[in-house]
Each structure stands twice: as structure tokens, then as C-alpha cells.
């Protein structure tokens, strides 16, 4: 059955020819194509959908769209499961599964409802007051309780299988909301040649035109909307999007919109994204977001069956669904009378309660002519029925409206209430608009804008159709005219609508005598009138404090229906006017957005770009384990059968020490430096002298920041008089380039030098080990590899099979070593050649782990030592610092602190037992039993297993390190209760004189 609660008319937007089956809490129901989960459940007379957050009170539906605070469900199952979804925003599809949340064992019988019985023990600020002492309970007792109670639905624990996309758009005019003013603005701007994007949150365009009986030109409002939309869709300069919520307004007119692309489709294609995030940079934004109806406060006004009147009308007119068959319309203004008229079309007679003395608005007169009973000066005091309302206690208000003169009980199955309207100013406020309070509307409206944003229609406080259209057409023309300079004006059509009389400022009903039912303001967070009163009584004055203390407006709905009532109540109690109280901050997102949409396609391997070296394929084929070095994938080690990581690393490192190894060094930063002042630039950037470096020679260089700290190091080679090849560490490659560009462009523009990154142009292989020379001779038979002809730090350019190759005799491993550089597209070929020729010399590839072992043993500094806290002296690099010339950061080295002989300097560390590896990050202390805080003398920066001595070895920095060589200290790691006795040794653990590289 598709439900008994359907209207007689087929004049709605559901497709009665297509039945859709879905389940809710395990029961199967039927709805029609075009139904939301909310409208289909209501049509099946299902009103109990969830439980409230704090008191676990039974809750149904209040609204019909994004304003819904109560009807939150858990959607789908398994990896597609999604919590906290507004049932009003879900279009049903065949087989849809939904269930209630925040209830156990079931929504009808929920154990948590005991909180409601005990509600006097859960006042505002309950958590602050209760979970205070003893302090020892904070982590052990209170936190688990709070965590268990927190949240509504259940977060899925499996990876999200759906596809999400991001899209970037630019337009002249973005129109947010397709009600009359939005359509008018889009039409006027589009006709005037502007590039327009029109965004509508709902499935259907038209906003209030879908529910209001009005005419525009000679058409009904809805027909005019349909025609306008099809006209806009036909224009090449317009993008029209439904199911698309603009939820954030950021700086420089950057807005973010979230589009539900295929949530409503039965069988979307595999490659259709589920949702799409649009970043829209708009020249101008028209905020035509409409307005949201406010609830009235009365006893138990949160019971299932109590709706906003506008929601009831929309359920009838758009979804063909009746929210009840025995309605009470309860209002303080004219607009709710629309619901009574609509019910009457289905032969359902409403009882109308109006808090005002009278009204002669057109709708009121129409209702009177229909013969419906209107009780003025009346209101609802309380309702009966826990899981669904069964009757209302209504009464006549006394003249001061502080009490009821008489009460009677009236049977009903729904109450449609209206407490007036709140302009949806969220986007304007996010854009920096300083809102002002409108005394006629009792609401904030946009006032002083900071960005290029224009509110029109009811979002601007203009509640008549005529004014909405005028504002929309005007904004559309003016904004497009300023951008396109076109003058094509679209005339405003004549419109007809009902007249409205002023609303009643009274919205919070008095309590029935002798009873204290809760009168809710914020439904989702269970904030009642009494909570706000308590907060003010306890001294909270600022609205921001009241908000946080009571949690008013802090739920997922961000107080869409509750903020204004809360503010008004605070100002009533404080006897202030609302503008003095102010409003809380509106922050994005306006409606909840799935994390998947925000992440988009940037998941898994697409999380960030992957940089692969030209020899990547070879590594993969040779059982590599990669490591991430920034965006680069670098070979970490190459395990052979059954080898552990440390087995493999030790074998690779030992092979370099004893024979020859090859390492992919492509990822090292490379910068090409050219120009008549190239040597001068290096001389200013590096701490050592560069003017006299001969062509064909490399030199090791250290560069500092202006504060004297070591920034980066590497070798730079003079290729010709005015041409240098600089290498940087992998990590700092991009920063060094920016650094050079800054000094060349900003500080010393007189230097004639160009710099260019060539990291990806060259593929590099380091060939290291005592047998490397023999291998090189065989590879490049035409090159003389004698030390005389090709000394340490030398460069030779040659060819191999017609491929240009640059050979550098440089070493990071401390062994005799060469680096072969070829253009990247020949990198794999070169590597294969080296492996082929190297076989007879026992060549093995080595990864970053073995590379680290080799350099640590040699006491060569790298990233962990260049941590931005070390001056050259600390790292034993004072010999690299020229006394004769000035360079970046030199003046800082004179600072007293940097010449203190007791500074922490680089040392080597060996565990006394020669077995225990010292964890990196361990602190060095004199006495590991000393009371805390134990004076820290330094820390361990890099650790390895020394293959040369077959025991652990580390380097680190130590206060007055040079004078502590030979002493015993402790390397402590308190987090893991580790303390290792260590001996301080020289950081140059292997080959301290550096003879091997020069053989």
C-alpha cells in the first residue's frame, strides 16, 4: 500500500504511476516516485521516526526540507550506511533501507527515555555541573559515559565505496535558490548576457511558487516557474542545478555547492559520482534562499504529529501527502491559513487557533468563507499522546497573554503551527554581511555587505511576491549590467497574490495552570523554554554563552527553526530588544555535507600525486619495498626470500662497503643555475667560497636561513664558467628553489642569473663501493677513471650508446662512488646497463635504509640533523663557514647563543652492551634515575646497525659534545620506559679521515 494519507488531487509532483518499495525499521512500505522518505512515511501514517538527543523523547517530523530537526535516520546498510540523514531530504528509491537512530531496543520502546522521566536532573549545563569532581573520574568514569551518550546515528566503519567528484566553476552571477526572486534574478541576468548559475537545493524548482496560489503574468506561479526554468535551461550562458545546496560562502566570493547527483537514482552508472562538490567563484552572488517558518512554543510541542504549517501545505501540494485528517492549525499570522485551505480541498475541516485578536487578511477571509471555525485569542497549552498526538488542550488567552482563561481538550491527529518567518540569512552572514534586526518581521535581515552579495525576496525580508519579483529582476539586471555592460532589461510581470496582515509578536504560550510540560525551542538538542530561563537566571548574558551553555542552536540543524525564538526569549527575559542581544555566528556548512564529498577523488592513491622515478618499473620487478619521500616513491630496501627488513638493509649496506651497490638518487633536487653572476649567487647563498671553483669540479655546500640555522646542503658542480648544477636534499628541493628565486627577484635583482628546477630532467644512479671504479671502467671504456684524471669531486661528461651522460665523483656513502646522470627518458636503459655490466662485480641495489646506514656510520648529516635548530658549528660544519665573505645568515652566527661552547653538537653513540638499538628521539641524560624533570643534555637523531662494526650506532646532538667523548650517558625514552647506557664516541664512526672516497 502506498498509504491512506494521500490527497485526492493528482495536481502534485509525485508520479503515481510508479510505486517504490522501501523499508523503515524492517517494515516494508510503498511510496511513489518523487516521494521523500518523509512524505512516504507520513502517507503510511508513520510518524514516530526517532528519538531526541538528550531525553530520548519520541519524535516525528516537523518540517519538509533542510530545516528538519527531528526526523533523522540511519540510511542504507553496510559500507553505504550513513547516519543523521534528514528523512525530508531523502528521495526514496527502490529497496531503500532506513532505520531510526538514538534508540534501543526500538524506537517505540527506548530505554534511554528514562532520561525524560528524570529530566529535572538534566537541566541546562547538566554536563558542566555533574562531571566536575572528583578529578580522578574525568578520564576513567565520565569520559566513557559521555562518549557513549554522544552522537545520534552510527558512523559506518567500512570504507566508503561511492565515488565523489570536485568541480571548479566561474560565473558572473550565482543565484542561490529558485523561488520567485531567484528565478527573476537568474532570468534578468541571463537575458542580459551574464554567465549564470542557478542552484536549487530541492528536486523541484520554484520555491514558494510550488505551494502558493498566485499568478504571474497570465499563468499560475508554478507554470511561470516551469516556463522560466525551461527558458533558462535553453540558454547557453546558464547552468541550472537542482538537488544542489550552496552551503558555504567564503572570501572573495568563493562559494561551495554540494550536488546530490545520483542518490535519487535506482541504478546509477558505475562512473556516475554519488555527489559532487562545486567550487564556484562568482562575480556576484544573489542570495534568494527564502525563509524558514518558526515553531510556536507550547507544552509538549515536540510530539509526533506537530508540524510547521508550511510543511503541512507542502506535503499536500508537492507530495500529495496528508499529515493528518483531524488537523488543528495554530498560528500567530496569516500564512498558516494556507494549510487550512489546502486541507479543505481534501474535504478535511481544520480548527484554526489564532493568537491574534483578529485578522482580515485575504486568506483569513477565504477560510471564513469556507465555514471553518477560527478561534482568535486562542492557543494550544499542551497536547496528549506520547508516540503520536491524540488531542490538544486548548484555551482562550487572557488579555495579558500570561495565562489561559479556560482550557478544553480537542481531539486531533496533527497540529500545524506557524510562529512567523525567519529570513534565511546564513549565506549573507557567512559572507560578512552585518545583519540588522527588522522590528516588523521580528527577524534579522541582511544590511551592510562586505562581499559582492545581494539578498532578494524573503531572504531579504521581502515577503510579498510583488516585491520579491521586483527585487529579483532589479538585482539580476543591475549586477549583470555592471559585468557585461549590456542593457537588455527584462520587464517585471504583473503578479497577483493574497494580502497578509501583521503577525503577532507573541509565540511562547503560557503553561497550563498547575502543570509544567516542556515547551521546546530547539528540538534537535532538547532545549526548552525553561532551560533558556535557567541559563539567564544563572547569569549567562551573552547570547554566545547562552548558546553554549544550553546547546541552543548547536545541533546538526544549526538552529534553523530555533535560533530566533531562542534570541527572542533571552531578550524578553532580559527586557532588552533583540538587536541588543545580537545573534550567534552563522558558519558553514549551512546543511550537513558528507565527508566523502569534501574529500572527492582525493582518496587512496589519488590522495596526493605520486612521483615515480624513471626506473620505478625495475624496482617493482625486483621486489622493492617503497618509502614515501615527500611525493616521491623511493626504494627503501629490496628483500630477498625470507629476509627481514634488517637482514636486507644490512646485506645491501655491507655490499656497498665490500663490493658495489647502486642507488636511485633521481629524487634529489636539481637546480640549473645560469648567468654571468651565477658564481656570485652561490657565493652569497652558500657559507663557503665559490668564486674560484674550477670548471668541471663539484663542491659541497651548506646554506643557511637568515637566522643562521642550516637550511640545506648538497653538492654543486661548475659545468662551465657561468653554468652550475646544484643538488639539494629531496625534502627541501622546492623550498631551495623558492629561496633562490626570492633573493634573485626581491633582494638582489641586479644579479644576472636564471634558476630552473631540473629534478625531473635527470635520472640519477649512485654507484658506490670499492669496486665501483672497476665497474665504471667497464661501463665507460673511453673515460680515464684514474684519480689523477678523474679526482674526487670531479665531473666527466661522456656518451654511452649515443646517450649523453654526466659522471660525478661524489659520495654520500663514504665509499669510492660515482653518480651517473642521464636524461630521464634514458634512465631505465642506463640502470639496466649498469646492472648487466655490474653483475660480475657483485652489484646489488640498495635503498634508503641502507643509504641511511652508510651515511650515519660516516657521520654525514641529513634531514634529522638539519632540523632547523642547528647552526653549522653544531654539526661540525664550522670549517665550511667562510670568514672572508658575507652570505645569507652570516650575521646571525655572531649571536652569543650561537657561539656558546656548551651548545649541543654532533656526536656518535654506541650502546654499552653493543646490542640494544637506540630509538631515534631518545633523550640523552647523565643519570636515568634522577627525579623529573631530568636535565636533558641532547637527543638521538639517527640510528642504524653498523655493518662495519656489527653493533648499533647512532648519531645525535649533545651539550658540550666534543668534551664528552668517552663518557657514559643514558639514552632514555620515557614513553616506552627505555633506558640504554651509551658511550659517547666521534660521529665519524667509520673511516674518520675520509680516505675511502679519495682512493
Amino acid at each position, binding site marked *: 500500500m502506498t498509504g491512506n494519507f494521500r490527497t485526492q488531487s493528482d495536481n502534485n509532483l509525485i508520479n503515481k504511476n510508479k510505486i517504490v518499495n522501501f523499508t523503515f525499521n524492517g517494515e516494508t512500505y510503498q511510496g511513489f516516485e518523487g516521494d521523500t522518505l518523509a512524505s512516504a512515511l507520513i502517507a503510511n501514517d508513520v510518524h514516530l521516526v526517532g528519538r531526541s538527543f538528550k531525553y530520548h523523547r519520541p519524535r516525528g517530523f516537523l518540517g519538509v526540507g533542510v530545516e528538519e530537526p527531528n526526523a533523522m535516520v540511519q540510511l542504507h546498510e553496510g559500507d553505504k550506511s550513513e547516519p543523521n540523514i534528514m528523512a525530508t531530504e531523502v528521495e526514496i528509491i527502490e529497496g531503500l533501507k532506513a532505520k531510526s537512530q538514538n534508540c534501543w531496543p526500538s524506537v517505540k520502546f527506548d530505554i534511554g527515555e528514562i532520561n525524560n522521566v528524570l529530566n529535572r536532573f538534566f537541566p541546562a549545563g547538566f554536563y558542566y555541573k555533574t562531571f566536575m569532581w572528583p578529578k580522578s573520574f574525568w578520564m576513567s568514569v565520565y569520559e566513557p559515559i559521555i562518549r557513549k551518550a554522544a552522537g545520534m546515528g552510527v558512523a559506518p566503519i567500512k570504507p566508503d565505496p561511492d565515488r565523489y567528484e570536485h568541480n571548479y566553476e566561474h560565473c558572473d552571477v550565482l543565484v542561490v535558490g529558485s523561488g520567485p526572486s531567484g528565478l527573476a534574478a537568474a532570468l534578468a541576468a541571463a537575458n542580459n548576457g551574464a554567465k549564470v548559475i542557478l542552484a536549487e537545493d530541492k528536486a523541484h524548482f520554484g520555491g514558494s511558487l510550488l505551494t502558493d496560489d498566485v499568478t504571474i503574468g497570465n499563468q499560475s506561479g508554478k507554470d511561470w516557474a516551469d516556463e522560466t526554468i525551461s527558458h533558462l535551461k535553453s540558454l547557453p550562458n546558464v547552468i541550472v542545478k537542482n538537488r544542489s545546496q550552496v552551503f558555504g560562502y567564503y572570501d*572573495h566570493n568563493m562559494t561551495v555547492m554540494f550536488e546530490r547527483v545520483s542518490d535519487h537514482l535506482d541504478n546509477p552508472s558505475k562512473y556516475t559520482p554519488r555527489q559532487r562538490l562545486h567550487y564556484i567563484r562568482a562575480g556576484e552572488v544573489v542570495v534568494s534562499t527564502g525563509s524558514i517558518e518558526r515553531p510556536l512554543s507550547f507544552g509538549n510541542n515536540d510530539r509526533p504529529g506537530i508540524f510547521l504549517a508550511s510543511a503541512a501545505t507542502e506535503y499536500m501540494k508537492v507530495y500529495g501527502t496528508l499529515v493528518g485528517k483531524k488537523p488543528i492549525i495554530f498560528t500567530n499570522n496569516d500564512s498558516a491559513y494556507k494549510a487550512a485551505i489546502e486541507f479543505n480541498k481534501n474535504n478535511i475541516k481544520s480548527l484554526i487557533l489564532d493568537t491574534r485578536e483578529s485578522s482580515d487578511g485575504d486568506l483569513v477571509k477565504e477560510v471564513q468563507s469556507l465555514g471553518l471555525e477560527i478561534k482568535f485569542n486562542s492557543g494550544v497549552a499542551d497536547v496528549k499522546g506520547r508516540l503520536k498526538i491524540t488531542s490538544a488542550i486548548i484555551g482562550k488567552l487572557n488579555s495579558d497573554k500570561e495565562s489561559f482563561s479556560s482550557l478544553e481538550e480537542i481531539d486531533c491527529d496533527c497540529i500545524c503551527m506557524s510562529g512567523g518567518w525567519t529570513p534565511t540569512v546564513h549565506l549573507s552572514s557567512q559572507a560578512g554581511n552585518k545583519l540588522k534586526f527588522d522590528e516588523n518581521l521580528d527577524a534579522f535581515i541582511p544590511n551592510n555587505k562586505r562581499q559582492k552579495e545581494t539578498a532578494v525576496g524573503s531572504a531579504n525580508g521581502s515577503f510579498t511576491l510583488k516585491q520579491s519579483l521586483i527585487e529579483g529582476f532589479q538585482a539580476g539586471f543591475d549586477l549583470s549590467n555592471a559585468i557585461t555592460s549590456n542593457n537588455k532589461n527584462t520587464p517585471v510581470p504583473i503578479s497577483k497574490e493574497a494580502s497578509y496582515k501583521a503577525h503577532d509578536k507573541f509565540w511562547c504560550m503560557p503553561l497550563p495552570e498547575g502543570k509544567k510540560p516542556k515547551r521546546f525551542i530547539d528540538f534537535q538538542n532538547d532545549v526548552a523554554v525553561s532551560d533558556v530561563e535557567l541559563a539567564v537566571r544563572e547569569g549567562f548574558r551573552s547570547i554566545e554563552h547562552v548558546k553554549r551553555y544550553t546547546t541552543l542552536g548547536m545541533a546538526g540543524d544549526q538552529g534553523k527553526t530555533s535560533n530566533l525564538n531562542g534570541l527572542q526569549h533571552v531578550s524578553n527575559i532580559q527586557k532588552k530588544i533583540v538587536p541588543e542581544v545580537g545573534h550567534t555566528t552563522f558558519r558553514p556548512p549551512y546543511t550537513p555535507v558528507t565527508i566523502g564529498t569534501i574529500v572527492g577523488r582525493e582518496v587512496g592513491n589519488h590522495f596526493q600525486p605520486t612521483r615515480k622515478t624513471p626506473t620505478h618499473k625495475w624496482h617493482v620487478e625486483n621486489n622493492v619495498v617503497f618509502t614515501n619521500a615527500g611525493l616521491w616513491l623511493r626504494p627503501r630496501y629490496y628483500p630477498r626470500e625470507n629476509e627481514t627488513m634488517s637482514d636486507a638493509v644490512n646485506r645491501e649496506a655491507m655490499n656497498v662497503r665490500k663490493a658495489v651497490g647502486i642507488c636511485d638518487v633521481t629524487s634529489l633536487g636539481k637546480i640549473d643555475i645560469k648567468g654571468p653572476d651565477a658564481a656570485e649567487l652561490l657565493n652569497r647563498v652558500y657559507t663557503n667560497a665559490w668564486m674560484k671553483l674550477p670548471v668541471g669540479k663539484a663542491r659541497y655546500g651548506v646554506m643557511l636561513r637568515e637566522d643562521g640555522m642550516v637550511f640545506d646542503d648538497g653538492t654543486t658542480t661548475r659545468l662551465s664558467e657561468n653554468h652550475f648544477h646544484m643538488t639539494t636534499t629531496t625534502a627541501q628541493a*622546492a623550498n631551495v628553489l623558492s629561496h633562490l628565486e*626570492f633573493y634573485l*627577484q626581491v633582494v638582489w635583482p641586479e644579479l644576472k642569473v636564471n634558476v630552473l628546477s631540473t629534478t625531473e630532467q635527470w635520472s640519477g644512479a649512485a654507484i658506490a663501493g670499492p669496486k665501483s671504479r672497476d665497474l665504471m671502467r667497464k661501463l665507460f671504456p673511453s673515460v680515464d677513471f684514474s684519480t689523477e684524471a678523474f679526482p674526487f669531486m670531479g665531473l666527466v661528461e661522456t656518451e654511452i650508446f649515443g646517450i649523453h651522460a654526466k659522471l660525478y665523483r661524489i659520495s654520500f656513502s663514504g665509499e669510492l662512488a660515482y653518480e651517473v646522470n642521464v636524461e630521464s627518458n634514458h634512465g631505465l636503459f642506463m640502470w639496466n646497463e649498469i646492472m648487466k655490466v655490474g653483475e660480475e662485480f657483485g652489484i646489488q641495489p640498495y635503498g634508503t635504509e641502507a643509504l641511511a646506514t652508510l651515511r650515519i656510520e660516516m657521520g654525514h648529516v641529513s634531514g634529522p640533523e638539519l632540523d632547523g635548530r642547528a647552526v653549522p658549528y653544531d654539526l661540525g660544519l664550522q670549517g665550511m663557514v667562510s670568514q672572508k665573505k*658575507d652570505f645569507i645568515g652570516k*650575521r646571525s652566527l655572531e*649571536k652569543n647563543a650561537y657561539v656558546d661552547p656548551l651548545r649541543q653538537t654532533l656526536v656518535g653513540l654506541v650502546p654499552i652492551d653493543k646490542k640494544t638499538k637506540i630509538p631515534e628521539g631518545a633523550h640523552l641524560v647523565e643519570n636515568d634515575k634522577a627525579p623529573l624533570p631530568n636535565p636533558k643534555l641532547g637527543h638521538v637523531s639517527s640510528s642504524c646497525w653498523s655493518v662495519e662494526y656489527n653493533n648499533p650506532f647512532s648519531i645525535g646532538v649533545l651539550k658540550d659534545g666534543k668534551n664528552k667523548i668517552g663518557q657514559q650517558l643514558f639514552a632514555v625514552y620515557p614513553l616506552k620506559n627505555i633506558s640504554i647506557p651509551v658511550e659517547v664516541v666521534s660521529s665519524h664512526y667509520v673511516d674518520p679521515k675520509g680516505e675511502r672516497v679519495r682512493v
Partner: protein
Amino acid sequence: MLEIKCPHCGKRSQNEFAYGGDATIKRPKLGDKVSTKDWDDFVYFRDNPRGKHQEFWHHVSGCRQWFKALRDTATHEIFNTAKLDEEL
């Protein structure tokens, strides 16, 4: 996300740029004798104004040029951008 007009390339999104600090700071000339105070002012001390601020930006994912911008630190409004040898 800000929209920044690179004086060489035109308007681009903020994610193409890197911020480069106060553009009014002048580095002492190489080789000059600099007092400790002047050096510390250059290296460490920056005004933190609420309002207009001259600053360097680097078009890192674009033309790789450094340039100047006049930005309001409170509202993020960018009043003007200029090449290094132009006045803001």
C-alpha cells in the same frame, strides 16, 4: 579561498600561491656592518597590523614570480597587487 591577481598572469586561485611575509622589510646590504638591534629587527621583528598590510606572494604553481600585494588582514580584501619594481 582568496582570488589573487598575479601581476604577470592575472587572477588565479589562492592555491597557486605561497605567502612570503612582510614586503616592507629590507635586507641589510651584504658586507655592511649591522648592529645587533638592526639585524634582529630584520630577522625576527614584524608588525602585525589589523588592516592594510604590504606583503610578498610567490606564484609557485604558475610563473614563479614574486610580487607584492596590499591586503587587509581583517577582511582579506586585496586592494592591489604589483610587480616588484612597481609601487603598490
